[in-house]
């Protein structure tokens, strides 16, 4: 997932809850605002207008369905706010003990009563419109049925459209209102008892929140100490527009961020390319620093880190070169005394009388160890080349038949001392290959030495070089003790010593065969190991010969 997509998803993940939360807060504020305005409206109508007088005058008939909206048309003082209208409104008056003179008044809601008792001047409750209607909403349902009937009537009588509201039941306003429809139009009955049974609410209660509101008036001792009104409130007629506006803003924000992220993403890509290029050159090539912002500072940080890595690489290279030089010098210094030692051992063995069988054996063993020491030193030198990252493999044309002769001549003395016969056969014509003569010779030498060292008195080693067409096959065969079939493929692994090899010679290290395998691999030649037909090991090298210029 790229950065731009992640950014978009993050914005969407954060934006959607914010839009919903904003909408919820906005709705809550609108409700509170409506409640405050209803409060002010009722206070103005009751306290400053003629509300209390009207209530006291006829508390038995005061209130009813439609009474709240009716206040807008009462001859009371104050501005009329059309947005305060409630759908399916009703208004009732109660004394301070929450009893009403009007027998049709519903029981006062307990939660509102509790709020008023808790020393509040007014209280409100929003009922969830999606839930089944409570008993307190009974009047709302009743009025809604009435409203629908009136709407049908008004639609069928164009003159009635002038009316701002349909008639209400037994409200003081209604009784003095001139809005009653003509009698010959069969207006809906204003008598609740004649009204049809309230219908199941259809859409209104599903779309609008249901408000119940109560207010303590100044008529504390009278029948109108508490005013209670209900109705569905159209608190957010522009909700849809606002909704689209919110999403529009969010989408615009998203677009702006993504568009703005383009150059940033592009610069990060360029920085990535620069860092990769720097890494490929061992941090010799610096990362380009563009501008002076956070990405530029990141590039600078990469350069600082690159400098440190470069220094570290240089220190490692210096240490490696120093170590290599040390190995080369030490090898050189040891080779001469080792040659002298080998000469002394040869002379000592020659001077010993044949009667001294044990002494001769000891000298032969000492010679074998000296030979092994020499081999280890040569392998150290080979490893320092193979594992040196900058070592360039030589690509000279070399005579493979001469190489085989040198290797056999090298190991023949020690084989003879151990009474092991070593023989070789060459094609008869010069055989040329391309490669590094030192490494190739060490590889073949390791295998031949292995065949001699892990052999026994009276054993044999054969080295055969054959050429077919443009390929050579070099086989080193011995008849030493057999190796485990499971062990044979693992022999070229570094430091591997098979159990059987261990018993044959406990100081045997897998380094020699590992080096041989690596050298052949680097030359594009193959080295395979298998059990020889004589019971020992057969190592086969194959590769391509060349024709010298």
């Amino acid at each position: 997932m790229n950065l731009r997509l992640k950014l978009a998803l993050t914005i969407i993940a954060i934006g959607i809850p914010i839009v919903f939360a904003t909408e919820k807060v906005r709705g809550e504020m609108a409700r509170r605002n409506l409640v405050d305005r209803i409060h002010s409206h009722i206070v103005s109508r009751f306290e400053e207008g003629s509300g209390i007088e009207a209530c006291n005058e006829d508390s038995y008939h005061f209130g009813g369905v439609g009474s709240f909206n009716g206040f807008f048309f009462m001859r009371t003082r104050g501005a009329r706010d059309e947005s305060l209208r409630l759908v399916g409104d009703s208004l009732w008056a109660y004394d301070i003990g929450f009893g009403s003179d009007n027998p049709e008044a519903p029981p006062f809601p307990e939660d509102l009563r509790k709020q008023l008792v808790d020393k509040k001047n007014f209280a409100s409750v929003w009922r969830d419109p999606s839930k089944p209607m409570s008993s307190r909403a009974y009047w709302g349902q009743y009025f809604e049925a009435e409203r629908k009937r009136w709407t049908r009537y008004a639609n069928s009588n164009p003159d009635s459209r002038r009316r701002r509201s349909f008639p209400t039941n037994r409200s003081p306003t209604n009784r003095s209102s001139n809005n009653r429809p003509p009698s010959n139009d069969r207006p809906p009955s204003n008598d609740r008892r004649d009204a049809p049974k309230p219908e199941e609410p259809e859409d209104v209660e599903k779309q609008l929140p249901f408000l119940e509101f109560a207010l303590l008036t100044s008529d504390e001792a009278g029948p109108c100490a508490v005013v209670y009104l209900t109705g569905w409130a159209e608190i957010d007629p522009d909700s849809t527009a606002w909704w689209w506006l919110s999403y529009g803003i969010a989408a615009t924000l998203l677009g702006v961020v993504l568009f703005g992220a383009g150059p940033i993403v592009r610069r990060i890509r360029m920085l990535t390319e620069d860092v990769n290029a720097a890494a490929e050159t061992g941090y010799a090539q610096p990362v380009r620093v563009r501008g002076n912002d956070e990405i530029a500072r990141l590039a600078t940080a990469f350069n600082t880190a690159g400098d440190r890595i470069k220094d570290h690489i240089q220190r490692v290279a210096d240490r490696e070169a120093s170590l290599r030089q040390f190995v080369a010098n030490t090898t050189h210094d040891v080779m001469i005394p080792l040659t002298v030692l080998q000469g002394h051992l040869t002379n000592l063995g020659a001077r010993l009388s044949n009667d001294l069988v044990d002494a001769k054996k000891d000298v032969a063993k000492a010679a074998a160890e000296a030979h092994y020491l020499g081999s280890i030193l040569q392998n150290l030198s080979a490893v320092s080349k193979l594992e040196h990252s900058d070592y360039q493999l030589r690509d000279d044309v070399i005579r493979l038949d001469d190489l085989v002769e040198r290797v056999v001549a090298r190991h023949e003395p020690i084989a003879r001392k151990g009474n092991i016969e070593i023989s070789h056969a060459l094609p008869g014509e010069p055989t040329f290959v391309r490669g590094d003569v030192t490494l190739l010779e060490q590889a073949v030498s390791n295998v031949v030495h292995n065949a001699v060292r892990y052999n026994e008195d009276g054993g044999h080693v054969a080295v055969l070089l054959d050429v077919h067409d443009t390929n050579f096959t070099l086989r080193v065969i011995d008849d030493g003790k057999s190796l485990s079939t499971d062990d044979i493929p693992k022999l070229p692994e570094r430091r591997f010593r098979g159990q059987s090899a261990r018993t044959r010679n406990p100081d045997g290290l897998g380094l020699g065969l590992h080096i041989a395998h690596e050298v052949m691999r680097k030359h594009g030649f193959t080295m395979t190991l298998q059990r020889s037909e004589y019971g020992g090991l057969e190592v086969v090298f194959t590769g391509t010969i060349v024709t010298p210029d």
Partner: protein
Amino acid sequence: MTAKILLVEDDVELGKQIVDTLHRENFELLWLRDGSAALQVDPQVFELIILDLMLPGAYGLDVLKRIRDTSDVPVVILSARNETTDKVRALELGADDFVTKPFWPEELLARLHARLRRPTLQRNGRIEIGGLQIDTSARQVTTDGSRVDLTRVEFDLLVSLSRRSGAAVSRTWLVDHVLDPHREGGVRTLDVHMSRLRKKLGAYGKLVATVWGVGYRLEPPVDPSKTA
């Protein structure tokens, strides 16, 4: 063998050992320990030169270059630096062989003998190995003057071995180069042919030796000096 050899080696102990080894082999020897001294000698008076590379006075490869300016005498390089660059450079400058330290006296001797080995006596297509004479032109073989009747394959096998007398020849090579692959078959057939050849050669049949894991070898004539 009384070849005159020049040894250029600065290490006293190693030089002494080489000198002792070569004297035991009856070589006539001149030992120089300084590169600059080696530059002064006439290489043509030697049959072989053993040259160390790390020398005081002059670098071994410079000495080699000087030698090659005037002589084709075989030069065997001794080197304690097992570096490809040295070997390749030495071969390019005309060295015949190199021996890397540490080496066994026998190893050095083998390399010297290989360089001094005289080719098998061949005159007018005739090969002589002691009393065994092979006339490649007439395709005739005699042992101590007596003619030996050989089949075509037996004769070719004997010639192939005699041309590399002293060296083993692999069965694979003999099958590929001597036997007719369409008629004679493989290794088992070769062994049968060799067995018959040995019988026909009589006492000289012992010269045809079986080499373990390799094939066959025609033993070189015994050096009278060795048996003495």
